[in-house]
């Protein structure tokens, strides 16, 4: 019996009906991953430990968690004890962490089995997964096309049906954009919902972990386990967790959805606009109302983000200096030479570019004009959302301006071209708001995503709206042909 493309609930039923054991499931999954190696979704497999854990899980009857025995994959920036964690960078190519990230630990404590670590843009810096030291990831829908990024490996592995769900992180769209490009569902929770302990930082004030899965329902299952207060992360919110599974499947009649005037959707490709209008109709037919809203400062999102995120990354990545862990250059003259060579050889171009931008933005004489100004604008963007959410429940936008594109076709000459991929996704990171991307059809044979942004801590509302959409459409059930692989 094939396990490919199965959702968590389907696998749950199979395990509970004893038609498959967790051990068999994990072995099948590893086999499937091996046969689809060409996609390059995984940096490291967790074969022996994964099977061992599955045998253990098969032998226990105590837990009734939905995730018990279910194989998952983790983005390769979550530290996993004893299992190599690279951030898809040469500088961490041999790094084996002595501890496990809280988010992963919670998923594993719920009985899930980590079968491997997924490929990503180096240190999560990128929107196409092309900055990985371990090579490009193919979009399962079209060979030679990017899966999006930075959580490209996670998105591709789920889209290819190898695993039902995977973890990702989202600093400016890194869960939602690859989910959109790969035709799956991904949610970035409210900043602080999921602990960042053990998640290798890109930009601390923007990074947030979340799930990528084949449905909103499966996202809810993962997020239920991943979220929760963690004293090891002081930015983690100490709020009561609502059971997100119980809150989905509520009627959405009267739901007020905002369309952002400033996003000028008329400028997008006609096919993308058509998809968006079609999805509006679906929601309207379910009783939702659309209103135009204004977010006056939203046009400053991209420059604001590209001042704050690099600034934080320039400092966060200082610890990769070749002294205590990670890549160390050979034949160095002195300490300074050790730093220069280890970092020059260990980091890729995009990471270096962002470290340089960030160092510049924080420098004496430029701090006020860039970093400080960006923080002030960030405050304005937050206020815009705060005002908007007084009269609406959700905001709807396309996830990305277009579809997946061919390797090397964007951002090679001009990196800013690629930065614009994040146009619709960045503002929810700046404001700390939850946002979800769901598939809503294809343009030229490639999936496109619909983004819903919710108010602070309104993941329940977001997941419900996404679930209801999926109950009344079949976009999320579409599968790539995979003939090329």
């Amino acid at each position, binding site marked *: 019996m094939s396990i490919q493309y199965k959702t968590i609930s389907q696998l749950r039923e199979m395990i509970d009906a004893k038609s498959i054991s967790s051990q068999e499931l994990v072995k099948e999954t590893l086999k499937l991953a091996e046969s689809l190696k060409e996609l390059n979704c995984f940096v490291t497999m967790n074969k022996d430990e994964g099977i061992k854990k599955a045998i253990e899980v098969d032998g226990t009857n105590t837990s009734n968690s939905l995730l018990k025995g279910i194989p998952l994959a983790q983005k390769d920036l979550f530290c996993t004890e004893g299992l190599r964690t690279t951030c898809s960078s040469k500088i961490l190519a041999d790094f084996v962490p002595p501890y496990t990230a809280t988010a992963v630990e919670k998923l594993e404590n719920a009985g899930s089995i980590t079968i491997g670590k997924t490929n990503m843009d180096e240190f999560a810096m990128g929107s196409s997964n092309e900055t990985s030291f371990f090579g490009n990831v193919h979009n399962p829908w079209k060979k030679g096309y990017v899966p999006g990024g930075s959580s490209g490996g996670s998105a591709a592995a789920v889209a290819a049906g190898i695993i039902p769900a995977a973890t990702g992180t989202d600093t400016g769209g890194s869960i939602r954009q690859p989910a959109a490009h790969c035709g799956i569902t991904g949610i970035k929770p409210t900043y602080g919902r999921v602990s960042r*302990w053990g998640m290798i930082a890109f930009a*601390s004030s923007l990074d947030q972990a979340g799930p990528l899965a084949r449905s909103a329902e499966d996202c809810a299952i993962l997020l239920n386990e991943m979220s929760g207060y963690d004293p090891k992360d002081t930015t983690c919110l100490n709020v009561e967790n609502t059971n997100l599974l119980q809150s989905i499947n509520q009627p959405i009649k009267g739901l007020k959805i905002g369309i952002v005037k400033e996003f000028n959707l008329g400028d997008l490709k006609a096919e993308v606009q058509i998809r968006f209008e079609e999805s509006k109709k679906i929601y309207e037919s379910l009783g939702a109302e659309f209103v135009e809203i204004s977010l006056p400062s939203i046009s400053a999102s991209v420059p604001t983000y590209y001042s704050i995120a690099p600034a934080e990354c320039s400092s966060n990545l200082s*610890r*990769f*200096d070749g*002294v205590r862990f990670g890549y160390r250059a050979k034949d160095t003259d002195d300490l*300074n030479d050790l730093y220069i060579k280890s970092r020059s050889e260990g980091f890729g171009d995009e990471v270096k570019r962002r470290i340089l931008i960030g*160092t510049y933005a*924080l420098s*004496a004489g430029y701090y006020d004009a860039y970093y400080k100004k960006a923080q002030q604008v960030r405050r304005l963007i937050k206020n815009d959302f705060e005002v908007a959410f007084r009269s609406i429940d959700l905001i709807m936008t396309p996830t990305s301006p277009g579809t997946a594109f061919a390797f090397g076709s964007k951002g090679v000459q001009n990196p800013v071209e690629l930065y614009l991929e994040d146009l619709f996704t960045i503002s929810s990171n700046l404001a700390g708001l939850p946002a979800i991307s769901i598939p809503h059809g294809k343009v030229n044979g490639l999936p496109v995503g619909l983004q819903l942004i919710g108010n602070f801590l309104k993941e329940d509302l977001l997941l419900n709206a996404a679930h209801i959409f999926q109950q009344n459409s079949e976009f999320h059930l579409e599968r790539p042909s995979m003939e090329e692989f």
Partner: protein
Amino acid sequence: MTWETVIGLETHVQLSTKTKLFSRASTTFGKSPNTNVNLIDCGLPGVLPSVNKEAFYKAIRFGMAVGSKINQTSIFDRKNYFYADLPKGYQITQMDLPIVLGGKIDIETDSGIKTINITRAHLEEDAGKSIHDEFDGFSAIDLNRAGTPLLEIVSEPEISNAKEAVSYMKAMHQLVTFLDVSDGNMSQGSLRCDANVSIRKKGDSKLGTRTEIKNINSFKFIEKAINFEIKRQVQVLESGGNVIQETRLYDSYKDETRPMRSKEFANDYRYFPEPDLLPVVISDSEMQEIKDHFPELPKEKKARYQKEYGLAIYDAQIIASSKSMADFFDAAVQKTKNYILLSNWLIGEISAFLNKETIEINESKLSAENVAVLINRIDDQTISGKIAKSIFEEMCSSGESPDQIIESKGLKQITDDDSIEKVVDEVIANNPDQVEGYQSGKDKLLGFFVGQVMKETQGKANPQTVNKILKEKLTK
């Protein structure tokens, strides 16, 4: 030309918390390298800091003691620079919103009490230690100290000479030890300072260019380093040169300051708010709690010693001026009734011993309990004052209790008249010439007889009794 010196001090006080500022690793000094280190301290990928509130309470206690404004909302910043013993590549410190703002500290100078204003005091984490001379061809890193909480106290440039700087540091030492903010151990680096020194023509209102002498860790070196630097700056200016604003190191072997290599300090620290930590808020009830349990400071202790125990003003002052001495007195005084004798011993014999050894009382083998027992044995005439001194020496070297020493060495004083009379009779019988001399008016010979009796009894005879019996017998 007459020159005037202007000095401002940045004092680094290592807070005596059990664990580090942002991790739960121990701060115990002297552990083998890299053992007081956890994931956070070595800056592993993915780790996050979480604050140790105890460090805040100590910083606030300091602020309250010097009359500062306390910022109940604390924000941390990152100070970015690369160094091998700085694991994260940045230090977490406070830039714009220090926990303590303003305040005053009184220091003793030749011309009386002078008040030095405090600009600010902020919390920060210490770096690790680089070891350059133990491994051939390699430098080594010890991260035990990394993340230890420091309070950096910045003074206004109101200190006028090296002696005042020392006086300021002594006042600081007294304050932080009495407040139980720090153990104040300078040789272990718990209290150290950077001195900003400049000179100007007497009467000028504009400050001269300053140099900063880094990391001075003893009272003696503070005085020497500053005096060297003043002399150097005077020479530079008088020979027509300019003082360059720079960071200098004091070399105690050569007794000179010299510029640090430019690589040893960075110019642009790229400060920005630490995004991994939310602002730390100290509630009003926490503030009240700190006030309610405020430690007794030297002034209050001195007054209490005079009032409760009848100590002389000078004695009370001396005991109350050192935290370790005051703690010792407070403990010993619970176990004896003869407060005055205890105070005399502390100021006399015990202080003399500590000075000779240049240690603090808490570093000696003396316990408050044993010293109290010693006082009690003198008080109840088990031993004479003279014997007490030899017992004290033994206590200092072995740490044994006075009762043990008295017992094992048979030092118990002979007080019964019969035993002493027997010895006196012997001495008189053996020294007929001296008896004749005494009886013919040479009163001073009494001392000779006392000496002989003491010699025969190995000093154990009660001197008053010996005197009394001798006089009786000799005048017969």
